């Protein structure tokens, strides 16, 4: 017995290694001329239908009278396809064939993944969006990017151009306040597959479960939607080897317009002179314009505050009160960004015999980033083998491996990230000295004296800070199914996924530490290395029983299952200091003092477990009336002991109107129409591990008894031991229609969902010892309602020319219906800790919050302002009884009274002063709608495809404005700043306030409408032109089956008014309370690629 099993395994193994041998007998064929005609069901000839002899690979098309001739093989299979009709496969049994094609019920006959099984789309009544391999922009480096703009109801945002970062995906809005709204990824049935680096070429299809009824089968993990990825499998009866090579150039997709050196220098002069004047007057002094000639020492002696009043002597002629043209004019963006190369090879071998099917693929991608020093090298390998062991038993294995090697860069604040740094660094300084070395410590050395931002040469920051990440992900998945009865199948699916990562960071002593120069003792002390190893392991076991039965017109499909999953992680993270030089840029060069080596907080182990029971029953009568009900219960270690199990039911139904006898082709001949409705409950368990257990924090240390360090423990933050999942209940109503022989298909969905028991970092009073606690807000409700619409059309399709168009449109409205008794939430999502967002009842989550700018002070306003100031009592923040204010309300936070060119804010509550109580909602990060569309053309051998996506009506809080749009002259600014208020004669464009570095009302840390910009955009995400070489199979005697060469551009152009790099912003990495903030993120790349695809 064992022997036979071994023999079987040998065959299985053999099939991995040399699959073509298994095909050997199929490859012997003799070509003969086959003729015939292709008609539709009514006998009308079909012109332009494609015929494909699977054995020889030869292809042909029907002529306008529906006739064809093809060189084929008797006994082999012929595949006939035509747009809008079902593809048919027949055995060539004679030399003259008449073939009839029936109209395809378009999308509805597709098979879609719905969780734990695959169903015909027509049998499933939920809202599932599907994207097939051919519709993906596979020239992009990541799968997420390939999906941009393709799916209605799913917002896929390109928030970063880093080659190692994928897109942000949101399904139907945000239903949560604090928990992550990321979808669950399931790759080939494995719900752990957050493999963002999957090879796009391996994808067969992507199905996104959008409504809760569909997603509920994944229970407590499903409220962000479920993305089911199916990889390519081998097919019986054919084998092919394909090789795809692509090479390209990537560049900065949009350069930010900034001041040049002279404009910057003038801004600095104005900012310091205005500040000097304000400070002299505020200090009770007398001002004359001759004082603009005061040298820096005089200025400091008079008002202190060197950084606010001193001007670099090499840009300002004090005596003449004039600009001296700066010596350098460096464009720091040009210095930091480069044209980066990328190459990709992918090789795939797919095929199978009657009993064994295989698919092997490997890919190598080397993608440089546009920031010098960044990039990713990636290796993908995947093997899928499926075997029919006997008529009752099937088994298979899916093995995948991904290796990544990243060189990364720090993002965010300029003091460590070069991206914002390059926008702020002053153009008056050179990047390199005369012998080509990076010049460092220029701005930082002058920072305290001249108030320049204390910042290192951004090119040096990028090049000399070492950040590397290598990761290896392996997934092993084996299944076995057995037909206990004809109708009853038992299936067991086991899986193991491991992920190992090494992250290394080195900050060299060759960079300045604040104002201290490279190599100084302070720079040596600031140098450090971090090394972090992460090991993750995930185990999965699933057992399902599937019963399928049709009797008379009744069709029944019942699934029941039990699953267990365990995820554990183990992280060790250490940081070393005490580096004496940069000769060893590794943690091993740690200093001699043992205390220079510390373990970081990230270190630790964690395990979480999930135990579930699930069931689904699908019934239909006569393929006209469909009903599905599903149920899942999840027990999770993440939930508190008082709240361990969650229940997630759903029900869905649909009605095929077009199959009714009374339908009589309302929408035209061969049209179809279906109505769907569903309701379901799904959950969100993104609450982290152990958040239901209050622990003691420590050990920490405290110095006691001279120089001894004693061990100290203290009470950890308060935790909620009833912590549970958050629930989303969603109703979906949908319609599917196919018109004009299904050349036009429309899918529309309307949904309304309510999330409750919201996971919420509830604010605690300080006396609780923690500022927030993660809990479920009882009685809280967040609503999302919206519409998504997908339209695909193929107006023309014949042998010579084919045109197809697709479009999608999504709108979502988010609203907090009830905060469940919690108070309004104020959140800080940009620079420092100033409040930027508010979440309150009746409004969407995370609205921009601040002051409304209502005007700019003019010279003519000054008389009124001065009178107001004279009557204003600062100590009581009020005016005398009966006094009527003449000018704008005074801000209590202003340390500098209003001058011409300052902005003033709305006194919302009318109490005469602008303070905390006048802050209000000032904008929204949510789009009014988003959309995507594509145009695809084929003309003879040429093909063309394009895709676009866009967003309308959202705003962006440009957190960078804190530095790029503050008129201080402490760092470079947007070009728009040249149009600022200078004087009554030079009032600028009326919106940009005057230059100053001394706490004016305008530039204090208060968020106002001034910082908001329109985030609407339209982007061409991809354009591809391809050429398929004609008759290559015949010309090469079938050595090569096809050759296609193509040229593609990703992110070709973006139309937007946004001043920063990219209006698709996500500084807070998907945090729901603080959406729509931009701040020093990696800008998008534009890629030009050339490629060739060979099939053997």
């Amino acid at each position, binding site marked *: 017995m064992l022997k036979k099993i071994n023999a079987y395994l040998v065959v299985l193994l053999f099939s991995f290694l040399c699959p073509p041998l298994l095909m050997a007998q199929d490859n012997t064929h003799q070509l003969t001329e086959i003729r015939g005609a292709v008609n539709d069901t009514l006998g009308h000839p079909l012109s332009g239908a494609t015929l494909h002899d699977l054995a020889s690979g030869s292809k042909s098309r029907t002529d306008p009278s529906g006739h064809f001739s093809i060189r084929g093989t008797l006994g082999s299979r012929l595949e006939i396809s035509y747009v809008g009709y079902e593809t048919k496969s027949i055995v060539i049994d004679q030399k003259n064939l008449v073939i009839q094609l029936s109209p395809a019920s378009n999308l509805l006959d597709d098979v879609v993944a719905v969780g734990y099984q695959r169903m015909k789309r027509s049998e499933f009544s939920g809202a599932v969006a599907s994207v097939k391999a051919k519709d993906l922009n596979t020239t992009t480096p990541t799968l997420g990017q390939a999906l941009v703009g393709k799916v209605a109801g799913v917002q896929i945002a390109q928030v970063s151009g880093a080659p190692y970062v994928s897109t942000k995906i949101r399904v139907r809005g945000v239903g949560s306040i604090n928990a992550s709204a990321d979808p669950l990824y399931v790759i080939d049935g494995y719900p752990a597959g957050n493999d963002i680096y999957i090879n796009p070429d391996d994808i067969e299809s992507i199905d996104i479960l959008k409504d809760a009824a569909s997603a509920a089968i994944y229970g407590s993990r499903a409220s962000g939607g479920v993305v089911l990825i199916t990889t390519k499998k081998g097919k019986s009866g054919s084998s092919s080897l394909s090789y795809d090579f692509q090479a390209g150039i990537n560049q900065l997709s949009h350069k930010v317009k900034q001041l040049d050196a002279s404009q910057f220098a003038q801004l600095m002069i104005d900012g310091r002179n205005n500040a000097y004047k304000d400070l002299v007057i505020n200090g009770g002094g007398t001002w004359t314009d001759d004082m603009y000639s005061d040298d820096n020492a005089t200025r400091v002696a008079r008002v202190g505050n060197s950084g606010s009043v001193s001007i670099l002597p090499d840009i300002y002629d004090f005596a003449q009160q004039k600009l001296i043209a700066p010596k350098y004019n460096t464009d720091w963006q040009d210095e930091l960004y480069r044209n980066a190369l990328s190459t990709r090879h992918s090789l795939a071998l797919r095929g199978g015999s009657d009993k064994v099917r295989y698919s092997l693929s490997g890919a190598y991608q080397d993608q440089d980033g546009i920031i010098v020093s960044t990039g990713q090298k990636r290796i993908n390998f995947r093997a899928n083998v499926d075997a029919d062991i006997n008529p009752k038993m099937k088994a298979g294995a899916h093995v995948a491996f991904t290796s990544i090697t990243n060189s990364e860069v720090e993002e965010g604040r300029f003091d460590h990230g070069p991206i914002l740094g390059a926008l702020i660094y002053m153009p008056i300084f050179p990047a390199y000295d005369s012998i080509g070395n990076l010049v460092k410590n220029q701005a930082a050395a002058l920072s305290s004296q001249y108030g320049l931002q204390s910042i290192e040469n951004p090119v040096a920051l990028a090049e000399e800070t070492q950040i590397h990440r290598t990761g290896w992900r392996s997934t092993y998945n084996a299944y076995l199914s057995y037909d206990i009865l004809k109708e009853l199948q038992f299936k067991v699916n086991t899986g193991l996924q491991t992920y190992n990562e090494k992250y290394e960071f080195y900050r060299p002593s060759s960079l300045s530490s604040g104002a*201290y120069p490279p190599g100084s003792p302070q720079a040596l*002390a600031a140098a450090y290395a971090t090394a972090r190893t992460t090991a993750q392991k995930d185990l999965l076991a699933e057992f399902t029983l599937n019963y399928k039965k049709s009797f008379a017109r009744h069709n029944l499909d019942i699934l029941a299952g039990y699953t*267990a999953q365990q995820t554990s992680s183990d992280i060790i993270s250490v940081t070393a200091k005490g580096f004496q030089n940069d000769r060893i840029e590794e943690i091993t060069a740690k200093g001699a003092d043992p205390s220079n080596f510390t373990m970081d907080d990230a270190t630790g182990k964690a395990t979480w477990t999930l135990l579930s029971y699930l069931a689904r029953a699908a019934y239909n009568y006569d393929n006209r009336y469909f009903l599905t009900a599903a149920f899942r219960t999840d027990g999770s270690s993440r939930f508190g002991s008082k709240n361990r199990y969650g229940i997630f039911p759903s029900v869905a139904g649909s009605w095929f109107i077009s199959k009714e006898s009374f339908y009589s082709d309302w929408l035209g001949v061969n049209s179809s129409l279906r109505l769907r409705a569903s309701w379901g409950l799904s959950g969100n368990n993104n609450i982290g591990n152990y958040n239901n257990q209050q622990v*003691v924090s420590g050990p920490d240390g405290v110095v006691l008894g001279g120089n001894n360090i004693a061990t100290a423990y203290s*009470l*950890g933050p308060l935790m909620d031991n009833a912590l549970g999942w958050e629930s989303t209940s969603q109703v979906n109503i949908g319609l599917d229609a196919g018109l004009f022989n299904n050349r036009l298909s429309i899918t529309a969905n309307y949904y309304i969902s309510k999330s409750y028991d919201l996971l919420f970092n509830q604010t605690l009073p300080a006396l609780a010892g923690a500022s927030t606690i993660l809990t479920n807000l009882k009685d809280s409700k967040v609503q999302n309602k919206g519409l998504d619409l997908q339209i695909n059309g193929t107006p023309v399709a014949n042998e010579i020319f084919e045109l197809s168009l697709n479009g999608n449109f999504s709108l979502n409205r988010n609203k907090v219906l009830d905060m469940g008794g919690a108070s309004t939430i*104020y959140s800080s999502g940009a620079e420092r*800790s100033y409040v930027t967002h508010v979440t309150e009842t009746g409004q969407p989550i995370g609205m921009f919050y601040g002051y409304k700018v209502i005007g700019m002070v003019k010279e003519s306003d000054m008389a009124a302002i001065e009178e107001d100031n004279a009557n204003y009592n600062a100590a009581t923040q009020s005016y005398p009884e009966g006094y009527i204010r003449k000018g704008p309300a005074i801000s209590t936070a202003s340390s500098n009274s209003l001058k011409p060119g300052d902005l003033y804010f709305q006194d919302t509550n009318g109490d005469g002063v602008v303070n905390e109580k006048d802050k209000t909602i000032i904008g929204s990060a949510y789009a009014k709608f988003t959309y995507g569309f594509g145009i695809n053309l084929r003309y003879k051998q040429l093909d063309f495809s394009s895709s676009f996506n866009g967003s309308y009506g959202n705003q962006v809080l440009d957190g960078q404005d804190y530095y790029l749009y503050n008129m201080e002259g402490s760092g470079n600014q947007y070009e728009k700043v040249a149009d600022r208020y200078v004087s009554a004669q030079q009032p600028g464009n009326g919106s940009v306030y005057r230059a100053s570095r001394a706490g004016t009302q305008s530039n204090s840390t208060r968020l106002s409408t001034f910082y908001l910009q329109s985030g609407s955009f339209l982007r061409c995400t991809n354009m591809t032109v391809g050429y398929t070489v004609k008759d290559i199979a015949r010309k090469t005697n079938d050595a090569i089956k096809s050759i296609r060469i193509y040229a593609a551009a990703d992110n070709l152009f973006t139309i937007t008014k946004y001043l920063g790099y990219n209006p698709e912003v996500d500084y807070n990495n998907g945090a729901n309370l603080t959406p729509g903030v931009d701040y020093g993120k990696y800008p998008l790349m534009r890629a030009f690629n050339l490629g060739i695809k060979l099939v053997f």
Partner: protein
Amino acid sequence: MKHTFFITIISAALVLTASSCKKEFLGQADPNAVTVADYFTSENDVLTAVNGAYQSLRSNAGMAEGSGLYTEERSDNTGRNDNQSNAGEPFQFNDFSLLPSNTYLQNHWNALYKIINAANFALAGADIIKFNDPDLKSQYSAEAKFVRALAYFDLVRKWGAVALVTKPVSSIDEAMQKNTRVSVDSIYAQIVNDLTDAADSKLPDLQPVSGKGRASRAAANALLGKVYLTMASALSSTKRADNLQSALHYLTASYNMRTFGTLNEIPYADVFDVDKKTTCPELLFQIEYKQGDKDYSSSIAASNQAKGETTNSLKPGTGSGGNVKLDLIKDYESGDLRKDFSVKFAKDPTVNDWYITKFRDKSALAGTSGYGGNDWILLRYADVILLLAEVNMDLGNNEAAIAFLDQVRDRAGLQNYKEAIKNPAYAARYPTLKLAILHERRVELAFENQRLYDLLRDFTPEQFVAYIHAKDQADYGLAKISNCGTKDYYYPIPFKDNNLNPEGMYQNPGY
């Protein structure tokens, strides 16, 4: 036979499933921490929790060396002139334009309650564990209560009525329910209880070297005396006499525990000498820092040092350092030895201003990274002695008061009070003994976070505003004296806590 393959896969699945059948499969506990319920098992666990309370004192947002923003900058001693961008938030403190949403204010409030929580946790532990040595329990409890009293004393003086918690909070409901202001009297009653327990405990009168950084009976008595003295002015006048008597009693008790004769035995510079920090007999309670240690060292010497200066630290300064208001400089009498030790004028053209030199560590061990060993002194005998002068004056014992005052003046190289008052300039500036003592405290204890409390103790809100308004704006920097109003006698309740319970955690007037 083919079923063997089947069995192989099934058994693989069972590896996971077998364990999942057990109930523990879903009951995962954090392997990296001890749950609160399981924590207290031995006397040592209480000790480490007491240490946790001392550790909570080390926050610069609370009462450690870097917390001058909340006291010195709020008074007339120090400040900052940069009102731009982020510096605008701390600028609000000396500018008397503080907003309830100020994040520094919120952090300060949070840090003080963190101290209270750490102390509450240790006290809860002391009640759970059965001690073999009852004296040990008394000591640990006394230490935790001393720390808790320190935090409440800061809170009640800065905000008035605040929320009172004396046990670890165990649920959200409890936290919300406790977030309400209780009267100033109740807060003082709690402080007095805690300090009375500490003063009567089995703690040593003064800590030996090995116990530096821990509370002692002398420290508890000193603090309790200061609390009573503050209560005498802050609370209703009916109990004023009692409070003054209690203040005198406890201050005297502390004074009598000293190991030196008079202050002039201890040179002023020795008090701040890093090498003498464990032996200087003047020090009553300090937060300790470890020289040369990147995590546990003090940075006060280096961070006060202005550009171009070398007095404080081997770490070069880059900015204006610890800025001193001219108003304080002018308050030093000529010949005061403390002036040259405490402040210096930085001549660098970008600074051109006074900076703090009171805290110095130029040792090689502290080095160019500025990892100093300066302890942060919360209580010392000069403070106690001047409080004794104050309470005696309040009780009408001017002679005794002047004797204590002269003890401090004597060490500073100044003539005694009775001589000084003959000097018309001195008499014009400090016409009353009360103002003379206030002045002496200012220069003796400059930059030690005492000045704001002295002003609040000595003056009513209206007197406080008048005192500030009487100053010369030119000596005050950019911060505007005219902004000062009676609202500034108290801090606003931080926005967040007020917002959680606008009625119970009501806002102070004027905000």
